[in-house]
């Protein structure tokens, strides 16, 4: 008998975070819902065989998203030149700046976006991010640097 109560507890504890991560990855409210549902159904079907369900769910989420971007054009493409940053316009509120950052996130390539979401929303270390994405730590670092440069975000903290 599948441990449905265990799965329910897991969804209750982590569902909101995973849903928001999915929406950040896809850049769309509804596609994010579909993506997180796809990932969590996989988690449910493997429940009882997974040692660490949250990392597994993140991997399923990111892999499903990258697969989808390979197969379909969702109406967005990564751009070489991102929109002008809000910081270059005087008197922009913090809220506008955050909105601008989220819009610019949509201009990143799928893997760049995944690295940013895992590192700065899910708060994973570089090693954890590399394990989730199935790429070397060095690639995570370079992808992250490239993405931050495109977002023109100044990172002053040391690497985690």
């Amino acid at each position, binding site marked *: 008998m599948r441990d449905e109560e265990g799965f329910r507890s897991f969804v209750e504890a982590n569902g909101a975070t995973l849903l928001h991560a999915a929406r950040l990855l896809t850049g769309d409210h509804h596609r994010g819902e579909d993506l997180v549902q796809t990932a969590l159904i996989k988690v449910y079907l493997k429940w009882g065989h997974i040692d660490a369900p949250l990392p597994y769910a993140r991997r399923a989420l990111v892999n499903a998203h990258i697969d989808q971007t390979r197969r379909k054009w969702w109406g967005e493409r990564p751009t070489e030149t991102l929109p002008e940053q809000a910081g270059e316009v005087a008197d922009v509120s913090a809220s506008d700046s955050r909105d601008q950052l989220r819009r610019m996130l949509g201009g990143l390539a799928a893997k760049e976006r995944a690295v940013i979401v895992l590192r700065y929303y899910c708060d994973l270390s570089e090693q954890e991010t590399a394990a989730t994405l199935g790429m070397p730590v060095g690639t995570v670092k370079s992808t992250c640097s490239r993405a931050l440069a495109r977002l023109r975000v*100044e990172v002053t903290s040391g690497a985690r």
Partner: protein
Amino acid sequence: MAPPSEFDLRAALREGEGEGLDADHLIIAGGERRARRRARLLSTAALIALVTGGAIGLSQLGGSGDSGGASSADSARRGAAAAGAAGAHRPDFGQATRSAAANGGAPAPQPGAPMQLDAVACPAAAPAYLLPGGGGLNSYGASGPMFARAVSGVVVCAYGPARDATSTPARHPARLALSGSPARRLVTSMESASTVASAQPCGRGSTNDFAIIGVGSSGQRLSLVTAGISNYGCAEMITNGTAVRYDWSPPPDLARRMLALAPSGPAGSLRPSPSSTR
């Protein structure tokens, strides 16, 4: 101005989080996927058994005389029996089809639709609510939700051209079951339609009667909403008997599927839905 910091990035990413997920819906969807996977495996096994039995039979037919023929027939029978036995384990949609047809529905399980939707039958005739005063802004509950609980699936019943009381009864309804994103998009468009009648309502001309039944995550039947949708994909008014919305347009892809169930009159280009996504 200074460029955004890591703190700004984290704050930007966190903004908007908070909405949770329905674990029951995920469990139901997971169960459905597992059942479909098993059905596919069984049908593949049955096909292999049938092909193997047939191949053995054919090869033995090409061998010695009567004894070969008899054993080839036995092999073919065994192969067919194995196929039949495997086929018997398929989920039986026939029962739901027969029972729902008796109620005036013609359910055709849609890919991805949870099995609970199959049990939701359409009313035999197009339902009609009598709203006090015809319904409106100041009527009790008129601006309330169409569905009091979260909807996991939707059954759309199409009755064909709208008829008045003196005309012949509507035909048996055609049926469309939606779940997941299409169901959510349809419900969202209904809930977000205007609560105020406009001076120039849409939905003029020939309309088709629909009943839209919400289904909860446990398969429980929720509200039934009536809608008369024009060939242009717009309904002047929709109601669940209490709440009312005006000038409702389903998302275009869903409007096409719904109108395809009950085509009438000349096809028109669909009115763009303000909330359409994909």
